[in-house]
């Protein structure tokens, strides 16, 4: 089980735990029995809804019970006014928020939340954005949170007819400034920037690229061992997603970045990421210029085999390819 510590327990402790659990098992099985029997009998009453609440609090992974819960709610909604439905859904969202705090990685809870919002007469996307911001404050890398955020943004855009690319771009900046080592935020930026440029055609793409490089260089200097920043750097320097550079412009950019990384390498002579980025960019530069790759690249790859022996074979293959 993920991150649950194993304890060495004596037979006596084990026996005590068994005895303690025996009562809980009887209670749990009785509850499950009650809920499943009710479902067989097409029982869609509020009383049964609260039974599923008790059960799902104990076991949020019981997907069949989430399905049943939706059946009950759908049935209740049929006879209710829009206001009554909304208030029922508000209760539901509150219940789910507590579950998410406890089980932030449970697919079924996020899933049920989406269903609630789709069933809501007047969903508050603003509230949802606040909620997911809170969830990402608690764990900035929870991919369920990021998935949900993109979903909420999409729904907001649909509801208001207004793009959220700019505020979302700013959000990733905030996350990155709080912690450079946030691969999720850098990733989201690679998705937002192309849209931003499309929606704000007045933006100077070259300037934006320069700003991004400035930001990532700061991040690299802060922690040259962090791979997320180097992956983003590679995207900036090599892709056409931001601006289609001419061959000369690309060469200039590569040369400038090579120089900057070389300066860092002087301070951090054993930085694996400096070395492999230099090897990669110099190789690229040689290809663009139609020249033979600089002999220093072989030196970098030799050194990489030495300082990063786990990936020795990769550097060997790379060296052969040159």
């Amino acid at each position: 089980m993920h991150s649950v510590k194993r304890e060495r327990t004596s037979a006596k402790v084990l026996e005590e735990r068994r005895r303690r659990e025996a009562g809980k098992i009887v209670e749990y099985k009785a509850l499950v029995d009650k809920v499943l029997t009710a479902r067989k009998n097409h029982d869609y009453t509020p009383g049964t809804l609260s039974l599923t609440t008790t059960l799902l609090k104990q076991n949020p992974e019981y997907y069949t019970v989430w399905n049943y819960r939706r059946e009950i709610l759908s049935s209740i909604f049929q006879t209710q006014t829009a206001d009554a439905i909304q208030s029922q859904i508000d209760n539901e969202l509150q219940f789910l928020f507590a579950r998410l705090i406890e089980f932030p990685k449970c697919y079924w809870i996020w899933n049920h939340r989406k269903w609630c919002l789709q069933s809501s007469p007047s969903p508050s996307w603003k509230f949802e954005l606040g909620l997911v911001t809170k969830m990402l404050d608690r764990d900035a890398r929870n991919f369920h949170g990021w998935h949900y955020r993109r979903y909420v943004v999409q729904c907001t855009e649909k509801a208001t007819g207004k793009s959220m690319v700019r505020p979302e771009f700013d959000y990733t900046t905030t996350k990155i400034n709080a912690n450079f080592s946030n691969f999720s935020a850098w990733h989201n930026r690679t998705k937002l920037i192309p849209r931003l440029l499309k929606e704000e055609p007045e933006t100077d793409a070259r300037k934006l690229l320069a700003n991004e490089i400035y930001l990532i260089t700061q991040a690299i200097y802060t922690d040259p061992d962090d791979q997320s920043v180097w992956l983003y750097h590679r995207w900036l320097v090599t892709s056409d997603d931001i601006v289609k550079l001419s061959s000369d412009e690309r060469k200039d950019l590569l040369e400038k970045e090579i120089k900057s990384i070389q300066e860092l390498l002087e301070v951090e002579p054993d930085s694996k990421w400096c070395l492999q980025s230099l090897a990669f960019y110099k190789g690229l530069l040689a290809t663009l210029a139609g020249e033979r790759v600089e002999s220093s690249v072989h030196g970098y790859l030799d050194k990489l085999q030495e300082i990063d022996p786990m990936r020795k074979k990769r550097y060997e293959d790379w060296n052969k390819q040159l």
Partner: protein
Amino acid sequence: MSSEFMREKHIAYIQSLDNKQDELEYWLSEHLRMSGIYWGLTALDLMGARDMLPREKVIEYVKSCQHPNGGFGAHPGHDPHLLYTLSAIQILFIQDALDAVDADIVAKFVTSLQDPETGTVRGDVTGDEADTRFVYAAMQCLSILGKLDQFDVAKAVEYIDQCKNYDGGYGFVPGAESHAGGVFTSLGALAIANRLDLVDKDLLSWWLCERQLPAGGLNGRPEKLPDVCYSWWVLSSLAILGRLDWIDRQKLREFILDAQDDEQGGIADRKGDMVDVFHTLFGIAALSLLGFENLEPVNPVYCLPERIMGRVKM
């Protein structure tokens, strides 16, 4: 340090799983039971001990979880879901008992979950949760059943291609960040579709081999902790790309062996944690892929014993 592979203890651990009715966890994990049997059975098979689970009883159990719409639930009384349908079909396939169920109705259930517009696949008929986990599960299931021609493979491939990111990896849905689990499901589906040409091999292999941390274990995304289950998602992906030698196999082996419970058997996510059958399978499957411990070879795309793969009609 537990440097030896505890084959006998792992076999005993897996056999003991159905005798834990006096533990609350046994009841709380009912929603996973079908997959639990697949994990346990495959692990036993790779250890050359597939007869250690009662074959007829397992087949009867699987059948008892099928619904009239063709899908399987995780346990009797649990709703049909694609994840458990795949596990059910995998179990029957290992037992060479596919004829115990009507393949057409299972295929009908699986194909009904594909969205004809986008090519993606939902997990079940009630929700709209759709991602590449389900695309992969659907394709593997249909491939085993020899019914892949009933599925829009081209559309599914298009969907997976949209999940590709700037780092060569794949997220679970378009727009999502690269994740080793998403890489595995995407590569698995592309391999079944025979469309690995769409993969940026060098870039992705690089991203994958950087998952290995100094302790020898593999993580699922940059700057995360290592975990035995990623031994499988990352390693099988590297195997599919023909780059198993881009990581340190010996160090990964040690990481997995250290996560064994040397008293009760089984493997945990990492050293010192509680074991479970999920990590036990993925640890053993990774060791098999690495060629250690004299295990039966495992197929990296299907996570099934290579021994039975000849029965798949490609």
